[in-house]
């Protein structure tokens, strides 16, 4: 797909995010919107996957370690054809398969259950290790939050991945700079993120994570990198695409009311038309 087609798709993904969270009356729009371009690139361009055969053996794997941004993942999966987009409106409802956090047992396209922060990267490392053991060529992608990397287990996993030279693993840090209690550097700064991953023997790429061309180049570079895992530190805008949510810490985990929803969808309609 061209960058413009991907941007248009990402805009549709964003509509799905706000629609799902609005219908759920709770959930996490901010970090879903910031990562929408990365989600879109991974599932529409980068990964070897088949929505008709979600469990195919040689598929690339994806772990959403920042599991609270499930609306971003679900909207992307729906847009890609894993399940009907209409189902997004059942997010977090009693009896829905679209659980508040990713549930691999019931959601097509979800390779790992997640939600308890810090644990997803370890699972992704296990998947990458399995590929190495079996000499398979599939790759594993793991999206982490920039607040999430305050969890110590992330660095246990990074140490292992670097030490074992898992070059089939690509970690993406959604660096939107905000967590629940405020800006990450005010809460407990994980900066410099790039230097930390470098110290753990990762190849590190810094990009604007809301720029499709930079995303494309980063994933191409990651794939070409041998002998070490790659970490893409993606500078993003939390709430990207919805005017009143952008860079607002309050929209980390809050649903828009009906009026706010209308404004959000209008913002996204205009953005889509301009593309």
């Amino acid at each position, binding site marked *: 797909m061209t960058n413009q087609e991907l941007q248009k798709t990402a805009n549709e993904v964003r509509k799905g995010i706000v629609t799902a969270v609005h219908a759920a009356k709770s959930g996490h729009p901010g970090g879903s919107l910031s990562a929408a371009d990365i989600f879109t690139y991974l599932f529409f361009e980068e990964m070897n996957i088949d929505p008709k055969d979600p469990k195919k053996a040689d598929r690339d794997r994806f772990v959403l370690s920042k599991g609270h941004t499930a609306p971003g993942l679900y909207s992307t999966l729906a847009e890609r054809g894993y399940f009907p987009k209409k189902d997004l409106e059942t997010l977090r409802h009693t009896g829905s398969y679209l659980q508040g956090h990713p*549930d*691999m047992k019931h959601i097509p396209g979800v390779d*790992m*259950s997640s939600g308890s922060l810090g644990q997803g990267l370890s*699972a992704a*490392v*296990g*998947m990458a290790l399995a590929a190495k053991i079996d000499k398979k060529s599939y790759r594993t992608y793991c999206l982490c939050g920039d607040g999430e990397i305050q969890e110590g287990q992330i660095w246990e996993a990074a140490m292992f991945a670097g030490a074992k030279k898992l070059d089939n693993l690509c970690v993406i840090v959604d660096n939107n700079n905000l967590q629940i209690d405020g800006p990450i550097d005010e809460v407990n700064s994980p900066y410099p993120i790039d230097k930390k991953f470098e110290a753990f023997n990762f190849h590190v790429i810094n990009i604007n994570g809301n720029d499709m061309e930079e995303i494309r180049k980063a994933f191409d570079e990651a794939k070409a990198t041998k002998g070490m895992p790659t970490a893409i530190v993606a500078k993003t805008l939390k709430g990207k695409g919805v005017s009143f949510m952008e860079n607002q810490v309050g929209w980390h985990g809050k649903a828009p009311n009906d009026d706010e929803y209308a404004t959000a969808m209008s913002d996204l309609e205009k953005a889509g038309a301009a593309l």
Partner: protein
Amino acid sequence: MSEVKKIATRESYGNALAKFGAEYPDLVVLDADLANATKTGTFKKAFPDRFFDCGIAESNMTGIGAGLATCGKIPFISSFAMFAAGRNYEQVRNSIGYPKLNVKIGATHAGITVGEDGASHQCLEDIALMRTIPGMTVIVPADDTEVFAAVKAAIEHQGPVYLRFSRAATPVIYDPADLKFEIGKGITVKDGSDISIIATGVEVSYALEAAERLAGDGVKARVIDMHTIKPLDEELVLKCAAETGKIFTVEEASVLGGLGSAVAETVAEKNPVPVHRIGVYDTFGESGPWNELMKKYKLDADGVYEQIKAKL
């Protein structure tokens, strides 16, 4: 009993992994810098390409195990019970239990038989913690023979399994030719009609000794090896309740939430008979040679016998 062969169940665990490694090519083993103590080092020697040392990072090891399982591997992750179940509880719950992944947790050095290392390393709560996780199977083998059977059963079982092993050398009570092991089916190792002693792990051999001494006092004690704490063999527990009345449970673990609790829950709801729980009573352990500690905490054959006599 002096001529009885003794071997620590952790030792058997390492041997069993090495034995089954050839038969099950998807079997992989992870450790967290304790391979010489947990005895996974035995597997490492036999299958170095399928052994991964995660270093002192048990949480990450747990997650790696989960990821390997999603790709069709059968990972055994090993550490001391304190870390495998205690430190790791939430990782086991969320990364293994909730997605029902096919990870086997081989926890060694459980209970006070850890000995000299003391309370910080003597996990008494692991049975209680693990049995609260939906879908988790919890097995505590009694001897060398049973470890081999339990490890094989765990490999064959689809889903998470917690296996609890001891550091201390314990008597071999089963002949491999005779042992019929099935997950969730307790074994009647000695029949009796007056009381039932339901024991698990290292306590099974002590329970047998205690039962022999009780026989000298004219008390016919039935001894059950309840190797699977979850799913509990409720049918056998209720049979004991119906046929012998009074039940004693014996475990080298906290009485809060362990085998004793599981048996008491079943009996209280379905056929109330007196249940006396023998184990560690709401306290931490301490340093000392393991056999001295077992005496002090009344969990050796003498202690079990005395505790039962006091409640007859």
